[in-house]
């Protein structure tokens, strides 16, 4: 295949498909109880320098309880696949990020991320840009067990030029086509509606790129609003997006996406999000927010106590229908 163009961006996490197969071969296939605290999951499975990924859309279904724990434990030099709003801001504010494969990091209706600006404009964080679907397709390639996937996004743009994608002449049509390298994560983090103790996980509503990211992860940490009996999972197996054998840790985390939302369960906490938007304008403000909501609280339960039952009930009751 003739290579027409090679992106000049660094391939932050080069795919090793055969090593991934070997890794998956050695993952336990038996049904084991994988429940543990977020502290244990993060300390056991996430290491300094790891390449991690979070699965969410905007402020929806963010693995906030897990991310807060990463901040608390100060796991550093992280390399991250970045499609994020709130949770990546936390990691950037805490200075734990070394490199980003970024597609979108911002505050949606509230504008640009000042944390991203500070970290990237100062040169502290290295970035390689992709489109949203390109990141999802890179996970899909890994999920398929192949080293790349051909797509028609990114062609002709600086998004491609500064990425690590390649354009080749298609061997079947002769036309230029973009090849995206598979993206295999050291650790994936996904927050779901319900899971059983083995890790069979179900998501309500749209599923973003949950199925793809789960299958692209060497190690997968699931947090769940609710841990349900396995029989309940088996009643609706069509809802299982993530089967247990992909999963290494199951963490119970009611309101685990707070201050983001969880469809059908609770709405997002606009007041606290606005507090972050304001606080994150400065480095000092961002630190004060982290002190208040992360460092000074021991775990997710303490966080929930701090937010208070009344507030959480309001967010639950605001769900329509």
């Amino acid at each position, binding site marked *: 295949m003739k290579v027409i163009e090679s992106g000049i961006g660094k391939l932050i996490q080069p795919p090793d498909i055969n090593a991934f197969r070997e890794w998956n071969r050695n993952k336990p296939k038996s049904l084991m109880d994988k429940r543990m605290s977020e502290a244990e999951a993060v300390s056991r499975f996430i290491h300094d320098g790891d390449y991690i990924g979070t699965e969410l859309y905007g402020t929806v279904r963010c693995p906030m309880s897990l991310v807060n724990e990463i901040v608390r434990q100060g796991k550093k030099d992280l390399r991250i696949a970045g499609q994020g709003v709130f949770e990546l801001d936390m990691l950037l504010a805490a200075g734990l990020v070394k490199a980003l494969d970024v597609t979108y990091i911002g505050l949606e*209706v509230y504008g640009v991320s000042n944390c991203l600006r500070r970290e990237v404009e100062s040169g502290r964080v290295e970035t390689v840009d992709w*489109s949203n679907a390109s990141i999802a397709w890179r996970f899909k390639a890994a999920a398929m067990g192949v080293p790349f996937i051909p797509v028609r996004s990114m062609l002709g743009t600086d998004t491609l030029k500064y990425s690590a994608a390649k354009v080749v002449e298609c061997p079947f049509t002769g036309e230029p086509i973009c090849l995206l390298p598979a993206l295999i994560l050291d650790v994936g983090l996904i927050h779901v509606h319900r899971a059983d103790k083995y890790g069979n996980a179900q998501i309500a*509503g*749209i599923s973003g790129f949950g199925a793809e990211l789960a299958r692209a992860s060497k190690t997968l940490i699931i947090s769940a609003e609710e841990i349900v009996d396995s029989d309940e999972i088996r009643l609706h197996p069509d809802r299982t997006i993530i089967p247990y054998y992909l999963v290494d840790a199951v963490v119970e985390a009611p309101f685990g996406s707070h201050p983001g939302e969880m469809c059908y369960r609770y709405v997002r906490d606009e007041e606290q999000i606005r507090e972050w938007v304001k606080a994150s304008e400065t480095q000092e403000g961002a630190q004060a927010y982290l002190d208040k909501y992360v460092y000074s609280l021991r775990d997710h339960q303490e966080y929930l106590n701090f937010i208070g039952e009344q507030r959480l009930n309001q967010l639950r009751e605001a769900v329509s229908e």
Partner: protein
Amino acid sequence: MNERDLSPQSAAGALEYNPSELLICSAARLMPDHTTAFIGTGIPMLAASLAQKMHAPNLVVIFEFGGTGAILDKLPLAVGGENTFHRAVAASGICDIVETAQRGFVEYGFLGGAQIDAYGNLNSTVIGNYFHPKVRLPGSGGGNDVGSHCWNTIAIMRHDKRRFVDKVDFITTPGYLDGPGGRERVGLSPGTGPYRVVSNLGIMGFHSESKRMMLLETQPGITVEQVIDNTGFELLIADEVKENPPPTSEELRILRQEVDRDRLYI
């Protein structure tokens, strides 16, 4: 009730509206009934909701994280929020949605950006040098995917010389790239590309041969000269430049009382 709900009359007797309301109403009119439209955060969401309640009840709204065919009774706050699949026909995921666009199913795509050039190329990545940016912007998000795969893309922008520039600092999302045939040369699907640019000063299209941006309509009370003066490149001018009719009282009523009751955006 908010004071603005009363739609106060100006001295000239015209309805008053703010720049966001003008952009929303102008964009909504470009969404035909019985078509598919890829909708992003912010103004496109409000425009799509307004279009559904006005002339396009069968507008199929598509949100990149999986919502297809939602009824936008309630305004989504984000592209993955619950309201993006409220009473929808399907709830899938991002690969399904963008692959659907890649297969040619999506007619319209709505985009925004910090900069746009004469060929409709958009920048939402960096101002300045990529490796030493003056301003690091959020990045492509779904922008590049929408601009690559939808048949017709519509950019919604505030209009000034900092935004309508001769050369964008970074091409995040492809317009016509370097001109006629540019998209096809790099392997993008033939027949796709920028269709309209909606700004607070005018409605622009693209010349069928040169693929350069062309002023089609001015916004109410705006002159052709004002549009030219606020554009950083040579803007083509249609033979007959019309004036886009101002938002109607019905559009404003629905927008204020039904679409964005809580005034989150307008």
